[in-house]
């Protein structure tokens, strides 16, 4: 069979530069700015506010003032301080959990690439994890371990496994059939070398997008578990727990919810925009 008109295939920009130039679009920059500002504020929380996030006072549900720029919560604690520390807690949790989940998922996908039986086993494993969708898995884990910080980390990590694993497995399946993989094999490279040095580097692009999405999903799961009272134990602040507290007072004291809502939305929106920017960059 003859294939003509190769001139129509346009040259793609370079690998690493592609991701960089994707991030330098308005989407990417907005996303980076949102995540960067929120994350930095969370990291520098002790410097930005001198108030203890857990110090209660008689001044409950106060509106914004010079001392409490975003008011106080139902127990008289400073909302700004709690939100900043909450961002810190959230980021620690998801930045621990998502890499663990990603690593486990990718390891499973690599295992699946070794043989037909391993592939079947790994696929059923993913099915098994997917059969406990998101929060349900959270409920199952907290039913065993009780609420706390580590159960949240475990839940998020487990939820992310099949996403990363399936993406990488699909990528490997496609790339493995490309002729350059056969060429490497014929050139004498071992199966493992073909997989790791040739196939995988061409299959990881979607994982970068997946990471950004996984981070925003992590924020959601933390929030939902806190909302159900199954997340990180009080009084330690997390975005989810502050939000779920404030929700009860939404009709009477809407200012309470403003700061946690803004921080959560900024983080998730930031990650989503970054994912979108990368996705467009990759497809270009």
């Amino acid at each position, binding site marked *: 069979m003859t294939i003509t008109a190769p001139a129509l295939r346009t040259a793609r920009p370079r690998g690493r530069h592609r991701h960089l130039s994707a991030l330098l679009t308005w989407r990417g920059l907005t996303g980076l700015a949102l995540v960067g500002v929120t994350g930095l504020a969370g990291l520098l929380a002790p410097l930005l506010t001198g108030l203890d996030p857990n110090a209660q006072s008689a001044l409950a549900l106060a509106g914004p003032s010079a001392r409490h720029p975003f008011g106080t919560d139902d127990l008289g604690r400073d909302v700004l301080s709690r939100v900043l520390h909450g961002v810190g807690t959230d980021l620690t949790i998801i930045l621990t959990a998502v890499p663990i989940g990603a690593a486990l998922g990718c390891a499973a996908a690599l295992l699946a690439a070794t043989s037909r039986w391993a592939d079947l086993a790994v696929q*059923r494993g993913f*099915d*098994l994890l*997917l*059969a*406990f*969708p*998101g*929060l*349900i898995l959270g*409920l*199952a884990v*907290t*039913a*065993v371990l009780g609420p706390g910080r580590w159960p949240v980390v475990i839940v998020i990590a487990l939820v992310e496994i099949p996403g990363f694993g399936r993406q990488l497995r699909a990528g490997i399946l496609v790339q493995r059939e490309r002729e350059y993989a056969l060429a490497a094999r014929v050139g004498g490279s071992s199966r493992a070398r073909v997989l790791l040095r040739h196939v995988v580097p061409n299959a990881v692009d979607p994982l970068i997008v997946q990471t950004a999405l996984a981070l*925003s999903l992590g*924020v*959601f799961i933390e*929030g*939902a578990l806190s*909302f*159900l*009272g*199954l997340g990180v134990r009080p009084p330690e602040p997390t975005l*989810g727990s502050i*939000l*779920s507290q404030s*929700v009860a007072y*939404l*009709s009477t004291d*809407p200012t309470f919810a403003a700061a946690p*809502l803004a921080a*959560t*939305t900024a983080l*998730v*929106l930031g990650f*989503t*925009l970054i994912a*979108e920017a990368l996705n467009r960059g990759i497809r270009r």
Partner: protein
Amino acid sequence: MRTFLLKRLPSGLLVLVLASFLIFLILRLIPGDPATALAGPDASPATLAAVRDRLGLDQPLPGQYLHWLGGVLGGDLGPSYAIGGRVSDLIGNGIAATVQLTLGALLLVVLLALPLAVAGATTRRRPVAAAVRALTTAVLAVPPFVTGVLLVLVLAVTLGLLPAGGHESLLDAPDLAVQYLAMPALCLALPSAAVVARHLEDGLRRALAEDYVRTATALGVSRRRIVWQHALPNALPSAVTVLGLQVGQLIAGAVVVERIFAWPGLGQLIEQGVVRRDYPVVQDLLLLVVACYVAVQLLTDLAYTWLDPRVRWE
């Protein structure tokens, strides 16, 4: 069709059996003893022994597992530990409400995603495409439990259009039931609708760039027919797969949504079960969720083969 079932059914059943193992084992790993949790920390050894005997906890694990599985298959789920009553009755009371909620949400997902995706993929006006993108991004960026509360605030408290929470039987008062259902279903549907809309939009864009669309254009087929009759059938199969995975998310999301809207369904029940450590309830509901997931996946695969003739003939 028969070969399809022969190929897919075993792997679905395998997942179901493995999941039942996992559920059973994990709930036995819990630190502390359910009998202690149930009878209270101050209970006498005699009381504890009696509780253990009543719940069958003194039997070896394989025996307990088979007993449980037998009960599930026979329709008798045994007594609950903490909530009170029989588990079958508890599930029976909540299941109708949850099914209404999730099916209502599923319907909304389809009704919202389809027009959004088609509008986003086919419009030549950039503002329209940008608006669709912004809308789906916004929906995806706000946690569902916040969306729910905002909906209550706007539609119920401020505008007074819909009741803030509660539930009415669909049989007794259909109009009221729909009013009660509208907001929770919408809240549950929004994130999934955004996800499905994005996938479908991407799929449609890709299909519209295919050679067969060029063929149809060269034959003088109208743009409208090309979108709906030529491109959409090609974009649907993968969108249906995504929809199938979203059903799992709907079931999970129902737990939060039922809490917000005081919806008396299984989500509330499982939450109660976890908080009060009522293991039979948790165990049976987890198995129910897995069974639903497996069934939905089978239906999705079936729909895929129906929509894509290439798979059908393989």
